[in-house]
């Protein structure tokens, strides 16, 4: 059984507005005079409560910087909560930042291996999947050359093929991925749908309200690091659309 439980989770960190602090600056400034570069407290998430069980398909909406991606990374275990507790049971598949983290000097095949190991595969479990990943990427002989020679579209194909090859229990998706050329896009969308159906639990961040309405059973509306509304998909999305129109109209009138 897959489940997610966030209890009163907050994420707070310090960011320096100007630049990083060096050890020299820390010692000289910190000891002798107040810093000219004071840290700024960033409240990325505040008091998030979320419970999800098998079968839940959760959509997360909100404006840029509302904390949607931070929420997803917290669920994935990448951002540890500053306060509160996070419990996630089940094998997690996270589809975000998939374009980064390639070893540029290694070949496509090798990168498939590294990525799969990173996602928790073992040499035994990956053996059967290698060919399927390669076939889905349609990269053929290009898999034998270092990925530093790949175009952005080829990288995306490879990344997508690897990331979606595992059978997830908890699926975390950030934005709908625009993948490669038209033919591949159709294929990728079919694969995504398949994944979303097979995953026991899904959390999806998207600005595309149509796919949210299609895919999700529940929606969270986030603003300023907080969940301001949550409930059935259509109800919350309608409210969200109405609120966005109200915001846009005065601006258009002026």
């Amino acid at each position, binding site marked *: 059984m897959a489940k997610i439980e966030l209890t009163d989770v907050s994420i707070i960190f310090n960011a320096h507005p100007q630049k990083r602090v060096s050890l020299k600056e820390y010692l000289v400034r910190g000891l002798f005079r107040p810093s000219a570069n004071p840290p700024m407290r960033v409240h990325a998430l505040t008091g998030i409560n979320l419970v999800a069980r098998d079968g839940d398909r959760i959509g997360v909406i909100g404006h840029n910087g509302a904390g949607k991606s931070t929420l997803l990374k917290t669920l994935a275990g990448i951002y540890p909560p500053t306060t509160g507790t996070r419990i996630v049971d089940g094998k997690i598949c996270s589809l975000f*930042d998939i374009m980064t983290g390639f070893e540029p000097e290694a070949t496509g095949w090798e990168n498939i291996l590294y990525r799969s190991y990173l996602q928790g595969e073992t040499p035994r479990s990956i053996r059967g999947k290698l060919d399927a990943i390669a076939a889905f990427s349609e990269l053929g002989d290009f898999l034998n050359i270092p990925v530093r020679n790949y175009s952005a579209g080829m990288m995306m194909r490879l990344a997508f093929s690897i990331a979606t090859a595992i059978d997830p229990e908890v699926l975390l998706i950030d934005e709908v991925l625009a993948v490669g050329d038209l033919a591949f896009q159709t294929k990728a969308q079919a694969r995504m749908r398949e994944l979303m159906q097979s995953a026991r639990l899904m959390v999806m961040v998207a600005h595309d309200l149509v796919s949210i309405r299609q895919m999700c059973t529940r929606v969270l509306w986030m603003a300023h690091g907080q969940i301001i509304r949550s409930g059935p998909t259509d109800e919350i999305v309608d409210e969200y659309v109405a609120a966005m129109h109200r915001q846009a109209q005065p601006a258009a009138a002026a």
Partner: protein
Amino acid sequence: MFRHLSAVWTARHFLLALVQLDLRLRYRRSVLGVGWSLLHPIAMTIVFTVVFSQLFGDSNPVGYAAFALAGLAVWGFLREAATSGSRAFLQNEAYIRQSPMPYTIYTLRTVLGQAIHSSLALVIVVCLLVLWKGNPGVLVGLALAIPGMIITLIAAWAIATIGAFINAFFHDTAQILEVGCQIGFFLTPIMYRRSLLDQRGLGWVVDINPVNLYLSVIRDPLLGGIPSPEGLVQLSYAYLAAVVFTGVLVGLAAGVVSWLQKKVIFYL
């Protein structure tokens, strides 16, 4: 801590695949292959042997070369663990942002690669010793040095981990360490023998230098061959000191990990 280590164990396939890649990249793209990356310590050794074995009145050039190369291998390993190891989180940032793997696998990636690299230099040392002594005592020395290598590996992992966490918060740490290593090289008995300092009453410089602990459990048994009874006692003291100091380093590293592992991602 044990939970952390078991998480590292779970990530072993990922880790070993990357270590393998690092080594292959390092030795590819050069005509000399493995030889190319050994050129630096070997060239240093030749220079040292030609210049210093005369200067320090060492009558046996092969013996001196083995001494210098063994010292350089151990020193180079610890130096790279500290400096390259400190950059491990920045280099592996993309992985860190994607997957909740234990952070220490990234420092272990650097340290393991360096360990294999330095072992190659030690293989040459063993060859030199066989050439010089021509008896099986060399193998006894090697056997006595192997636990020392393992202890040094653990210490290097701890140093790299501490350095990497500090470097994530203060990006000039790696540079400061580099300067420190540059100075440390001359304060460590690598190209000169300890007796040279003892004669001048400067033996304490070596005594307070922790690098010397690792030299005395790798280089000294390796060069010593079959030890005399007194030598064996001395060696066990050296091992004791190295184990205790490594234990302190590991404790420090474990403390740093548990203190900072929840914060470090916001500073990368």
